[in-house]
């Protein structure tokens, strides 16, 4: 299994996709924090640094897309045939991908959190606003953002395995985030806090009417596990044509 995980990491190292996604994530992160610095709440609003840091979690969408690529891009580039020929027990392939991509998702989260912290510190220095780096709120946001990235990468792997058409998988993920969960939330009322996006936002310590952070993280992890089981089960049965 370790060799398989290593193989997945090697595959990621030899293509440009993860770098392009990471650069996009970090670029938008800086843009988002700059936007808050220019047009956000009053500079001395105690919530502002937390909102800035939370962007590292919000942009975990890119970790999700990375995860979607794990299986769906293998179908797209027809490498899935060789992957399954080398390892006929497909559940092992899916598990290796889940572990490898979750790890890389965490790295995306660490890079994002680092950049977000740096940008926030720079902003506080320029504006001469004291930043309480040791505060609970700051670290809960940073750690939440990192874990959110890791879990979203895992969720992405499962989505890509369930929908091996890369465009369809990314489309479904986008539609869920932008439209479906919002509409579903209107129907569900208070239960909307338990949906995947909302639980991610709770984990990321975003302000709003959300679950407690730890509960949000556990709920999102639960979604990741359930999706992973369904993804592994369907991958075993699917004919590869």
């Amino acid at each position, binding site marked *: 299994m370790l*060799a*398989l995980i*290593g*193989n997945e990491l*090697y*595959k990621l190292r*030899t*293509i*440009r*996709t993860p770098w392009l996604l990471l650069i996009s994530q970090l670029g938008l992160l800086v843009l988002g924090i700059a936007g808050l610095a220019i047009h956000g709440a009053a500079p001395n609003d105690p919530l502002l640094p937390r909102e800035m840091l939370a962007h590292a979690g919000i942009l975990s969408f890119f970790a999700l897309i990375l995860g979607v690529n794990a299986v769906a*891009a293998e179908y797209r*580039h*027809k*490498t899935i*045939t*060789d*992957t*399954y*020929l*080398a*390892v*006929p*027990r497909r559940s092992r392939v899916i598990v290796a991908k889940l572990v490898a991509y979750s790890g890389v998702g965490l790295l995306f989260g660490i890079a994002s959190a680092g950049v977000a912290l740096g940008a926030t510190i720079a902003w506080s220095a320029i504006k001469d606003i004291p930043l309480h780096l040791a505060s609970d709120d700051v670290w809960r946001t940073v750690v939440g953002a990192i874990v959110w990235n890791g879990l979203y990468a895992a969720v992405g792997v499962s989505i890509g395995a369930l929908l091996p058409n890369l465009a369809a998988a990314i489309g479904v993920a986008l539609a869920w985030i932008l439209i479906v969960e919002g509409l579903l939330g209107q129907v569900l009322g208070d239960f909307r806090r338990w949906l995947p996006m909302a639980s991610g936002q709770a984990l990321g310590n975003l302000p709003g009417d959300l679950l407690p952070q730890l509960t949000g993280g556990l709920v999102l992890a639960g979604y990741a596990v359930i999706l992973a089981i369904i993804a592994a089960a369907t991958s075993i*049965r699917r*004919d*590869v*044509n």
Partner: protein
Amino acid sequence: MAELVIRHLTKQFGRVRAVDDLSFEVAPGEVTGFLGPNGAGKTTTLRILLGLVRPTSGEVLIAGQRYDQLAQPRRVVGAVLESSGAHPGRTARAHLHVLATASTVPLSRVDEVLDQVGLTRDAERRVGGFSLGMRQRLGLAGALLGDPEVLLLDEPANGLDPEGVAWLRRLLRGLAARGRTVLISSHLLSEVAKTVDQIVIISDGRLRFAGHLDELGEPSVSVRSVEIERLRTVLNAGGFDVRPAGEGALDVRGSSAEEIGRLASIEGIALLSLAEGRPSLEDAFLRLTGSPELLPRSAAN
């Protein structure tokens, strides 16, 4: 002992029966051609052999085991399918490195197979810039990585130039000579006839022929004459199986050229040509698969 055993294999895709109670065996030490018209079920059969598609019923065994029971499958079976590919952003070497580590094959094999397929100079290039022929060679390199006992190749000559096709033929014949089992599917019948020893022909998912190339059809004599009608009467009277074979020509079975020549001489019929032969693979293929529409030239006969 047969390396590949296909026994009562059936695969149903919805309402389409792609493979229908198919049984045949493939022996080591020979190159076997796996032929059939488009949609005959060749690729599905290969995919079932490789565990990529689940059969509806029946079984397929490689060296006595199901593919997913093989401990190190890529060391037993190497395969190039039309649907196998490489990530365009990866270099040829990185692609083979991925395959080698996934298959627990020593990395030293990467350089060996790159050399074997003639891609050493292009090893550091991204696959996205490769020609079809180079991709085909890369696919073969991947199949050869584990130095497997069995090679399954789906249309391996696709995209190769004539020199490449000749190279491939030597490679496959060399592997068979060393006791390996080689099964290739192809639609290039003349190329297949030059490369293979054994033939398996399927159509509509059913077996039409399995055996040596020489067993494909009984020998016949083709004869041309200016007095074709009189010759036909004479030969018919002699009890031979006579068929028209175009203008002024006959195809005769159950006789030899010598016998026909003597008969014609006795009757004073002038012959323009007289030759013994076997039906070409193409003719046999069309007869067995009943799909003359594929090749209009033969259908006219």
